[in-house]
Structures are given as C-alpha cells and as structure tokens.
C-alpha cells in the first residue's frame, strides 16, 4: 500500500516537471517587456532599467532563469545592488515555486500566492458543492435507469444527459438567471460576499441561496457523465452470476439492486476523481464569470487579460498539481475499495 502510493507519487514527478517547463516556455513567449510590466513606467532611465533587469535575473541565460523560478536564487550569489561586483554574502531573495514563491503579482503588488489564497475558499465552496451535487444526483439516476432499462425514466435520463453535455454552461447559467432570478425572482442573480469585506462572509448556511444556481451549472456536466457511467457499470454488474444467485436465493429485488449490485457498480466511479478535478477547475472559470463569483476561476480570466503573469503561472501550476494529485488519489482509492486489485 505504502509502496504503491510512493511509486505513484514518483510517477507524478516527470509530469510535474513537464508542466513547469511547458508553462515557463509559455511565459517566455509572452509579449511585453517584463520591466515595463513591473514598473508601469515607459520613461524609466536606462540605468534603472538595467538595475531592475539584473535584480530580476533577466540577463541570465534562460535555463538559469527557469532554475531560479523553480528553486529560487537565495542559495547562490547574485549581484543584487547591480554594481557589477559580487560582494560577500550578497545572495538572491527569491525562493522559487517549489517553496511556494510564485513572485509578486504585477497588478496587486502582493505575493501571487496570497492573491490566489484569498480566492480559494470561494472556489472550494463551489467546487465541493458541485462535486457532491453531481454524485448525489448522478449515481441514483444511473442506478434507476439501469434497473428500469428501456423505460420512460431511462430514456428521459439519456436525453437529459445528452442535452446537459450539449448546452454551453455559460448559457445554461444565463438562462437560469433569466428564469429563476429575473422572471420568478426566486434566487439572487449574482454575487456572493466578497473576499476581504470587513467582518468577512456570513456563515455558509445563511447564504445558501447564492450557491444554488452556480452549483447546478457547474454540476450539470458531472450529473450527465456520472449517470451515464453508472448506468453502464450497473448493467454490467447486473449480468454477473452473483446477482443471479442473489435473486435465485429469494432475496427481495431492492436488496439485490442496492446492496449487491449498486455498491459494486460504484467502484469504477472512484477513478473519476482526477478528471473531475480538471473539469471543475475549467468549469469554474466560466461559471464564476457568469455569477460574479469571487473565486480562482474569475481571477484567472482577470489575470490573463491584465497580463499578470506571476498570478497566471501560479494558477496553472496549482491547478495542474491538484489534478495530478487527484489522479493519484483516485488510483489509490480504486485499489483500496476494490478487493480484486492487489498492490503489487
């Protein structure tokens, strides 16, 4: 078990480095002079510009720049006062992304990681709610559709799944706003308490009505996917011999369906955690924009349009790392739940 976990973690390392190289290349290819982006001053003098460039390490060859970005430069001498001489004890100040230092946001003038940290609770709230909703709705729909195969419910759930996959999520959100917010006036049309308001947010249960529409929009794809997947898995399980045995020994249908079949059919769902996380990150970008939700997804769009590269890079890396971990956890989970799989 421990051996398996460690092996999967080690397998994740090349992927992680691939991502860092890829995103660093992207940042290098980005248009715009980093110095101007840092200072927002086109009239800066040549000397001051040169000094900034040396301090930021922009004159180094790019492999060194990448290394600095990755593991920092506080372990090697750097000419920080830009006088051309490396003095005793003159070291860099950056710690590198491996130690959580993603640099300072050009726009917010704070550490990029704290800018993101402020936004994470909102996204987590939405993401967890959407994941739970899609599981709680998707799995039973799939089970019932499989039991009543070919019936009205089965056909209805099939049509629903296809439609949910074909609707652009932002439009689904706008339509819900139009119907439940504008016409019926039942739910708030957008907004959630901000991130740094005085006194902070009221507790979650006091503002559930804000969560309903965004959660549903973010969960729509998941509901469709899980219900389809669960139906297939359930049909496969039902045809097994042990289900026939359970029926034959006279157990009531409900016991067979839910205790014997559904529990086994649910095992492969565990492998969906990794892809689900990627889906939630991507979905959050659009859903948060539609509902004015102050989370990481909206920050990503803002940072991209403002060319705030440190924040963009931090979001990409964090999103990728969480996805890698999601894949590893789902593999381990799968092996844990399914006794037919051995750790060897």
């Amino acid at each position, binding site marked *: 078990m421990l051996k398996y976990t460690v092996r999967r973690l080690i397998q994740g390392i090349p992927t992680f480095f*691939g991502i860092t190289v890829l995103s660093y290349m992207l940042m290098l290819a980005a248009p715009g002079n980093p110095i101007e982006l840092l200072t927002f001053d086109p009239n800066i003098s040549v000397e001051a510009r040169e000094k900034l460039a040396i301090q930021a390490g922009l004159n180094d060859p790019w492999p060194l720049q990448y290394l600095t970005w990755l593991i920092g430069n506080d372990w090697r001498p750097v000419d920080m006062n830009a006088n051309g001489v490396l003095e005793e004890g003159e070291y860099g100040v950056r710690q590198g992304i491996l130690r959580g230092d993603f640099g300072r946001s050009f726009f917010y003038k704070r550490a990029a990681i704290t800018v993101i940290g402020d936004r994470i609770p909102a996204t987590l709230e939405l993401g967890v709610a959407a994941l739970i909703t899609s599981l709680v709705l998707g799995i039973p729909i799939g089970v019932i559709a499989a039991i009543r195969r070919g019936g009205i419910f089965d056909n209805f759930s099939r049509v629903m799944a296809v439609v949910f996959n*074909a609707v*652009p999520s932002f439009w689904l959100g*706008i339509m819900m706003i139009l119907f439940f917010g504008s016409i019926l006036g039942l739910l708030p049309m957008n907004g959630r308490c901000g991130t740094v308001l005085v006194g902070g947010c009221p507790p979650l249960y006091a503002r559930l009505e804000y969560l309903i529409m965004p959660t549903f929009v973010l969960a729509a794809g998941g509901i469709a996917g899980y219900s389809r997947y669960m139906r297939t898995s359930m049909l496969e399980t039902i045809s097994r011999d042990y289900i026939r045995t359970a029926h034959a020994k006279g157990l009531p249908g409900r016991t067979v369906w839910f205790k014997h079949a559904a529990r086994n059919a649910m095992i492969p769902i565990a492998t969906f955690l990794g892809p689900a996380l990627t889906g939630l990150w991507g979905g959050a970008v659009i859903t948060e924009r539609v509902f004015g939700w102050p989370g990481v997804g909206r920050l990503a769009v803002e940072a991209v349009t403002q060319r705030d590269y440190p924040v963009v890079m931090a979001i990409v890396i964090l999103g990728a790392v969480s996805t890698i971990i999601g894949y590893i956890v789902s593999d381990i989970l799968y092996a844990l739940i399914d006794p037919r799989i051995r750790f060897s």
Partner: protein
Amino acid sequence: MTTASAEPKGIARLQMEEEQLISESLLKRALRRLWHDRLTMTAIGVIAILAILSIGAPFISEQILNTDYSRVDMAATFLKPGEQGHILGTDDLGRDHLARLLWGGQVSLGIGFTAAILSITIGVSIGIFTGYYGGIVDDLIMWFITTINSIPSLFLLLIFAALFDPGPLGLILVLGFLGWTGTTRLVRGETFSLREREFVISARAAGATDLRIMFVHILPNLISIVVVTLAIDIGVLILVESGLSYLGLGVPPPTPSWGNMLTDSQSFINRAPHLVILPGLLITITVLCLYVIGDGIRDAFDPTIVD
C-alpha cells in the same frame, strides 16, 4: 447461455449475417443503416440547413435583409422582433440580430469544423505512428499527453488566447493544436491491436513499407473511429470556442460569433431576452445534432448490432 430451443434461430441468424457480410461492404452496410436511422438523418438535415444558412450569410443579409452584421444604428437599439423590418429585432447597438446570427453561425461552425479537422489529422497521425512503433517514442508521447492533460485545458486556452490575441484563424490553430490528445489515445489503442493482425503481418511479409502499412492497411480500419470522433469533436470545439468568446478571449468583436454575442448579454437580460436566448439555443441545437450524428454513425458501424 444457449438453450436447445434457441439454437436453430441463432444459426439461421448467423448465416443471414454471414451472407450480408459477403454481399455488402462494411461501409455500404453502415450507410444503409444510417439511411434508415430517422433520428440521425433528422440531425444531419438540421446541420445541413444551418450550414447552408451560414454559408449564405453574406448573400442573405445583403440581398434579402438589406443590412450587414456591423451596421450600427443608435436610433434603433433593442428593437423587438418584427419592428421596423428587423425580423429578429436589433441588439444594443441597433445591429440586425438575424444578420448577426447568420454571420455568427458562419464563424462558429467554420471554426468548429476546421479546428476539428486539424485536431483529428494531428491526432490520427500521431496515434497511428506511436501505436505502430511503440517503444520509446510511444513512452515520450504518452508522457507528453499526460502532461498536457494534467493542466485544465481551459487554462491553457486562456493563456494562448491572451498571449497571441488570435483572430478566427489563430483560434483555429490553437484549438486544433490543443485538442488532439483524446484522438491520439483512441487511435493508438486501436493501432496496437491492429498491428498484430494477420493482414498486417502478411502485408509486411509481402514487403510493404511501414508507411504503406500504416496508411493503406491500418487507417481504413480506423474510419469509424475517425468519423465518430470528428462529429463529436466539432461539437466540443464549438462549445469551447463559444466559451472563450463569451469570456472575451475568442473571436474579437465586431465579428460576431454565437459565443461573443452573449458576452455582455447579461446586462440587458431583462430588456431584450430574445438577444440572450437565440444564440445559445443555436449552439445547443448544433452541438446536440452533432452528438446525435456521432452516436448514429457509431451504431451504424457497430458489427455487434444486428439489424
């Protein structure tokens, strides 16, 4: 589980199937099945109508509607459908909504279709190549695919879109070059099993080159996968393009696309709901039809389904 009573029927059925297989090629059979599949044919019809209307957008808007997608008329904003000769009303700048929907269709369908063809071409080529040769090339490409797939694809798209400020053409390239990994995985898996089959071995024994085996002997066996993936990919890419355009990072205005027509629509959702409903409805119908077509083609090619 075969029972004695079912056996004669089963054999008769098998013989029938065998005769069909001899008398009819796989492609012919698939086409015949498609022709009798009403749902799929309806979907194909809807897509055909939308495509014709989009291609005819310049003609229809100039000759019939007497307007243009970008003609601003600040005296006639937010007209309701039918007012002052605007069949579907006008938008916040007084531009004819129908003309914009038609042009938007041209842009959205065009981008989805071209980008899908690009991504399928890349995906199939790499998939056959890596599946056929295996070994270290395969390991490297699979590692690359795992890496790309670990980054939420919308993040990558956002960055590309923001860095290179693409017009429609740039968007096609970005979508095409980021969307091939799924196809590659599918094709690679299939090629793995195909390359061990007798017809490939005999081709090799007869002295066929690797390239010839890959593209003359293996590729035709992948045709159903390719067509199904193409239909579904067009749908997916139309969705992605609309999402990017909605965020303001896709097709730049004033060129309309079904996605960017919805960018600011939330601000006049009460005033002119029809401006908000129609573009999204068209995206949904288009993507829905493409999914139905993909499913229909898959069933038509499926040898395990007996008609």
